[in-house]
């Protein structure tokens, strides 16, 4: 939807958005030529329709959070819907003993390496903190690399033991 100042034949610019107030949004436009202002006022259904698209009129100041619409939209959501650290033992990856290569997604096709970093369980993080400081970065890097290679999403004590055994640390 665009607003045109008929007098100036110019597109009006959005100035500000207010609300929702009692379910209504007020969106203010101004003509850059003659400075005339108009306001678009939405009814609750129209407000909800815009909200359900997951967009904000006037732009979003920050990128949306993961699952932002879902988290903000569910009525009666589960308490502690998310957790920062999953319980130990939630790692696991299938045995890749067979499978046609042509059907596989290439390894290392990640365009953002940071996104692939596994999380650490509280116990594993605590255990890492007990490693002497001068070798800790190397140990952390080795374990992270091992966990990523194995496809583990969470580094637990078990994963650390595995990495230690596999890498000879």
């Amino acid at each position: 939807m665009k607003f045109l100042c008929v007098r100036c034949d110019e597109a009006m610019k959005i100035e500000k958005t207010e609300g929702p107030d009692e379910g209504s949004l007020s969106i203010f436009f101004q003509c850059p030529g003659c400075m005339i202002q108009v306001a678009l006022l939405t009814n609750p259904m129209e407000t909800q329709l815009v909200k359900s698209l997951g967009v904000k009129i006037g732009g979003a100041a920050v990128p949306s959070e993961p699952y932002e619409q879902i988290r903000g939209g569910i009525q009666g959501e589960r308490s502690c819907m998310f957790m920062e650290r999953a319980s130990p033992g939630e790692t696991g990856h299938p045995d890749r003993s067979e499978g046609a290569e042509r059907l596989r997604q290439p390894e290392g096709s990640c365009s953002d390496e940071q996104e692939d970093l596994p999380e650490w369980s509280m116990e594993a993080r605590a255990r890492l903190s007990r490693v002497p400081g001068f070798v800790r970065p190397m140990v952390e890097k080795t374990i992270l690399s091992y966990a990523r290679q194995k496809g583990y999403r969470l580094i637990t004590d078990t994963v650390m033991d595995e990495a230690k055994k596999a890498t000879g640390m």
Partner: protein
Amino acid sequence: MTPKRYAEVAGDGGSEILSQVREQALRLRARLERIAHPVLVMSGKGGVGKSFLTANLAAIFARKGYRTGVLDADLHAPALARIMGVRDQRLVLGERGVHPAIGPLGIQVVSMALLLPEESTPLIWNSSSQSASSASAWQGTQDATALRELLADTLWGDLDFLFLDSPPGTDRLSDFVRLVPNLRGALVVTIPSQVSHLVAKKTLQMASRLGCRVLGVIENMSGYLCPYCHTVGPLFPAGEMGGKQMEKGLAASFLGRIPFDPAASATCDRGVVFALEAPDSPLTASLYSIAEKVMSVL
């Protein structure tokens, strides 16, 4: 002088909606690019066993060594969290996305059931508009947005297969086609009844209209597996559309039949994947056969 028309006015008037929609699309695309084979599991009617098939196919592919995930796209009647035995897990929220629940053999699982307090809790969206009559105007959009977020904001990583368990019917098919441009195709599940076959044909036609490739048709509950003599007898009357007629009447590949086994239904309730618990069952053999055919058509 004729005022400018819509297309003649540059930009979007400052609403920034187009740029936000583009950003959403880019985010989704970046996530889906790392999934080699997204496959939709759909049906015309409900209760034909889509979720059962999704869970078991995922388990078979994972057993074969493929990195596999399942998305329970039936937002209002999610079943996969229970069937995959992950109902008690919490999703892990990270800065760049949400880590899925982990099912058997490391299968990644995302379901609305993991976000609702009880399994019997319906999905109701908060709304500034309390009118039930106006809800129909925006609920479909809200559902589509939620589906987009489940796809785009989940840290699936590099997957070989992502099975999307669709709600019954073709209402959401256009959303899947739009949201998942690299969709490899759809598996259409039916049962051996005239009504179900007719609806399956409608589903195939709708898929064709929307440009969604159908990988094949699977007939579930195709006979009753007797637990005593282990033979398969008819469960539904084999009328005009039953049996071999099903194969002949299709405009798509017929991938196979799965017999009805009461034990299979019980595993769904217990949160155990049947193909893993009963690897020697004739039902599991039929699932493996279908999985092989799916791989061959991909």
